[in-house]
């Protein structure tokens, strides 16, 4: 029995420059209590679809055709009065940014109580009681007290729980989730996803997840739709889509991210060339045709492509039956012979003196990075990864301890006290492509300046030649030097940033979440590029990331940090197999993998990350550890446990017991 039936929905945006079609004809059915996931990159019309379903498109958006049938009403043509009966009560939405979904001037209780007061005409006291019940349902600690708090007094994960509680208050039949966990730490994300699943079972609510994160969709959805350029291009059960994708776009998306357990030695990532077409320049025929490797002139660009395929696995491709999946491209990575340590951190500490007390952002970091390898630093926000990057790059100095780069002590010297060679040798690629380039200056200027300062060139002609070399290095045309950053896509900006970092001869490249802000199809291109340049130049890469799939793929060595301390360090293969540090185990179990058949053992961390101003005295992780032994963990710093292959674990639990756990990943997923 279908709960929601979207049939041939057409949405246009009417702007001063004319009308553009956002959704040319979208159809989707959601059954009662079903969980449907929609994936697609930014600009594919996912958010437009959600807003059209709520008839909240803004003044420019117009529904020009089709129907949205929900519980006997056609929402596309319903009156405002009818819509008011549906919005918030029968269909609720959880927005992407929990911080901006809550009103900062109202208490949680007041905001939650509005829903039953509005929709069920409950008196205020009853509404507040109902709010407290639902807060208990979303596992909010001390729900009664939470009612009188303001949003700024809650953590990000708690805010998202409140938003979910608000959506559930009216007991909706359909819950729309727009990137519900973007911006949350992986352990918090896992807890929120579990919570939604639990509530779905309890209230029999149907879910529509919208996300670009394939791993998340694989974990939560029964049925998956893939959106491209405003159209549904493929629809099947989650297992089918991930095991046997039929549309070239779906295949492209899956080939662009590391398969579970894959590493750079075993398989290469395959980017999808080009970008999502803009609404105004929709290609005739198949929307994906300009980027498709199986494009056939005269066929794919002839006219609109209808849904084809088989019952239960529909695909909008004319050639789906004849096109076979391309074999995974072989790895091009050649393992470099092991080398000496280039970077050595010994007992490195960074303490910020704040009015509220001393904040130990880094507390006794001990690890090394070998020449030419990729060292990944993993941990949730607040773990001190970025502080370490700032000390390494010389933006700040350490409070104590030592950081030796090629034998020279750099922990106590900022860039201004480092030699020109040392400055050029340690460069960085930043997370946010929009902030990484100065919008006031052309690309050529930015690169030229870097060449002048880092490469030491003075001659104008030589600088210009070097800038062209750098653009070629990151596979951009030489004409790109005239572009302003606002004319570039996110991936292009990130490539310019990589070129800038390589203006000198960097021996260490610090990459702080280099692809997390990019679309999936672009991520692969940037990862490949980083890897290729890094291997070619023999540079060491210090990768800072929370994306364990990417870390598994890229890293040779991994350091796991929690609250400023190293929990575990070792070769990548060893980190992803037992023995695990309990924190690593929880991180791995929480990481969403693009494989719906993968059901990791559920290890969920209780509570929030403690304040770094007042960390636990013993093991930093003691307050949230699911395998805590007892007071010894809280009071005594954990001993170092070392295995034969250089795998270090700081834990009170003996190695034998740490080893005797079932792997979070199936063994074949760990060993290539």
């Amino acid at each position: 029995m279908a709960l929601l039936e979207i049939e041939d929905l057409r949405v246009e945006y009417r702007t001063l420059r004319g009308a553009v079609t956002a959704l040319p004809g979208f159809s989707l059915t959601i059954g009662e209590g079903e969980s449907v996931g929609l994936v697609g990159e930014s600009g594919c019309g996912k958010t437009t679809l959600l807003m059209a379903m709520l008839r909240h498109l803004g003044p420019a958006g117009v529904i020009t055709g089709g129907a949205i049938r929900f519980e006997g009403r056609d929402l596309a043509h319903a009156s405002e009065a009818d819509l008011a009966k549906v919005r918030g009560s029968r269909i609720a939405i959880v927005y992407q940014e929990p911080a901006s979904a809550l009103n900062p001037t109202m208490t949680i209780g007041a905001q939650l109580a509005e829903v039953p007061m509005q929709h069920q005409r409950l008196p205020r006291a009853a509404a507040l009681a109902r709010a407290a019940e639902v807060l208990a349902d979303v596992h909010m600690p001390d729900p009664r007290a939470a009612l009188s708090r303001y949003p700024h007094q809650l953590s990000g994960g708690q805010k998202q729980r409140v938003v979910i509680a608000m959506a559930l208050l009216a007991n909706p039949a359909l819950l729309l989730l727009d990137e519900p966990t973007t911006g949350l730490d992986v352990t918090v994300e896992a807890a929120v996803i579990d919570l939604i699943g639990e509530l779905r079972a309890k209230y029999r609510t149907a879910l529509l997840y919208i996300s670009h994160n394939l791993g998340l969709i694989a974990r939560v959805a029964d049925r998956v739709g893939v959106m491209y350029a405003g159209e549904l291009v493929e629809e099947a059960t989650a297992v089918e889509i991930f095991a046997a994708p039929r549309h070239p776009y779906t295949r492209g998306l899956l080939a662009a991210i590391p398969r579970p357990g894959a590493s750079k030695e075993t398989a290469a990532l395959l980017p999808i060339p080009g970008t999502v077409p803009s609404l105004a320049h929709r290609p005739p025929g198949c929307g994906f045709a300009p980027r498709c490797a199986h494009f056939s002139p005269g066929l794919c660009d002839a006219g609109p492509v209808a849904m084809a395929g088989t019952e239960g696995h529909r695909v909008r491709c004319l050639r789906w039956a004849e096109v076979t999946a391309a074999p995974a491209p072989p790895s091009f990575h050649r393992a470099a012979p092991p080398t000496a340590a280039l970077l050595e951190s010994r007992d490195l500490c960074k303490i910020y003196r704040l009015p509220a007390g001393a904040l130990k952002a880094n507390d006794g970091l001990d690890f090394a990075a070998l020449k030419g390898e990729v060292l990944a630093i993993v941990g949730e926000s607040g773990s001190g990864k970025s502080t370490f990057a700032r000390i390494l790059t010389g933006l700040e100095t350490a409070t104590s301890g030592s950081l030796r780069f090629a034998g020279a002590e750099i922990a106590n010297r900022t860039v201004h006290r480092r030699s020109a060679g040392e400055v050029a040798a340690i460069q960085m690629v930043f997370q946010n492509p929009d902030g990484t380039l100065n919008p006031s200056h052309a690309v050529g200027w930015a690169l030229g300046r870097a060449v002048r300062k880092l490469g030491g060139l003075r001659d104008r002609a030589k600088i210009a030649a070097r800038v062209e070399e750098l653009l070629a290095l990151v596979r951009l045309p030489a004409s790109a030097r005239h572009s302003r950053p606002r004319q570039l896509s996110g991936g292009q900006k990130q490539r310019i940033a990589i070129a800038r970092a390589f203006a000198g001869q960097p021996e260490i490249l610090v990459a702080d979440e280099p692809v997390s802000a990019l679309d999936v199809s672009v991520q692969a291109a940037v990862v490949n590029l980083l890897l290729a340049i890094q291997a070619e130049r023999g540079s060491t890469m210090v990768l800072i990331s929370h994306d364990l799939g990417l870390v598994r793929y890229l890293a040779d060595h991994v350091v796991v940090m929690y609250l400023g301390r190293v929990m575990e360090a070792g070769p990548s293969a060893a980190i992803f197999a037992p023995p695990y540090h309990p924190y690593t185990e929880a991180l791995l179990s929480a990481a969403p993998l693009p494989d719906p058949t993968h059901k990791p053992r559920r290890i969920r961390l209780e509570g929030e990350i403690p304040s770094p101003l007042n960390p636990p005295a013993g093991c930093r992780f003691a307050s949230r550890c699911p395998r805590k032994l007892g007071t010894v963990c809280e009071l005594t710093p954990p001993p170092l446990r070392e295995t034969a292959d250089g795998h270090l674990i700081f834990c009170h639990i003996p190695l034998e017991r740490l080893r005797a756990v079932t792997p979070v990943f199936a063994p074949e997923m760990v060993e290539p």
Partner: protein
Amino acid sequence: MKPPFPARSAADAAAGAVARAAEQIDRPSPSLLARLPSSRIAMAGLCLILFWVLVALLAPVLPLPSPTAQDYLAMGHPGPSAAHLLGVDTLGRDTLARIVWGARIVLLVAPVSVVAAYAVGCAMGLLAGYCGGWVDLLISRLADIILAFPVVVLYVILIASVGASALNIVVAVILSSAPAISRIVRGITLGIVRKDFVAAAHLRRESALHIMLIEILPNCRGPLITDFCLRLGYTTIMIGTLGFLGLGIPPPAPDWGGMVQEATPMLIVFPLMALFPALALISLVLGFNLLADGLNELAQKD
């Protein structure tokens, strides 16, 4: 030449797609000034300003009497006549000539003083926003103190104490405008200082001066262009007000504000004597304000 991507196995198929979806970089969207003609308001303002600039430039060649020459015969009938198109003032000087020559003064003193105020204000704002800490505290509190005075009172105190001259007007405009400009620049700087491109500049060991002037200042230009035009308008009014209060450009130089003031005793008998210089002042200020509005509107469309 190394192959660009490890796509060799699927290379044949992918090559076509790569070619069709070749690296696309959007065309540059035209700059704010290039789009100026698309805003009617901005163009109207610009026309008014250009009219006065033209008038000021052509003053020496226009067939006008000297702005200080007195026509004693016309004093009896100061209204418009064939000899004096806009009439004469109480001393028998030609109003049109004085307005035209007065435009030269306004259009010199106002921009010079605003530019000078900008130099000081940007320096203050950049230092405050970039350095932070006690530098910020000192500059911001200083700005607050100056901004606490009503602008007119500030001008009057300043000019009355140091004497009326073009240079002192410039100094007074710097003192009253620079703190407001510094606030704008400081606010923008605070946001930009945290951006990654500034961190990247630090990682190249750029000097603080380079970061402030080359990395940060150009990103302030959007709000500053609008403010610059508005401030030209305010300053023009202020110069007029000072002239009216007798604190403007010293006589006998033709000063629009002074002309209005000289005509006020005769306002009931000869209202046109005050009206013409007042209209000149209003039209120029209107020009600056319309241009500012238009630029603001264009900036919002970005």
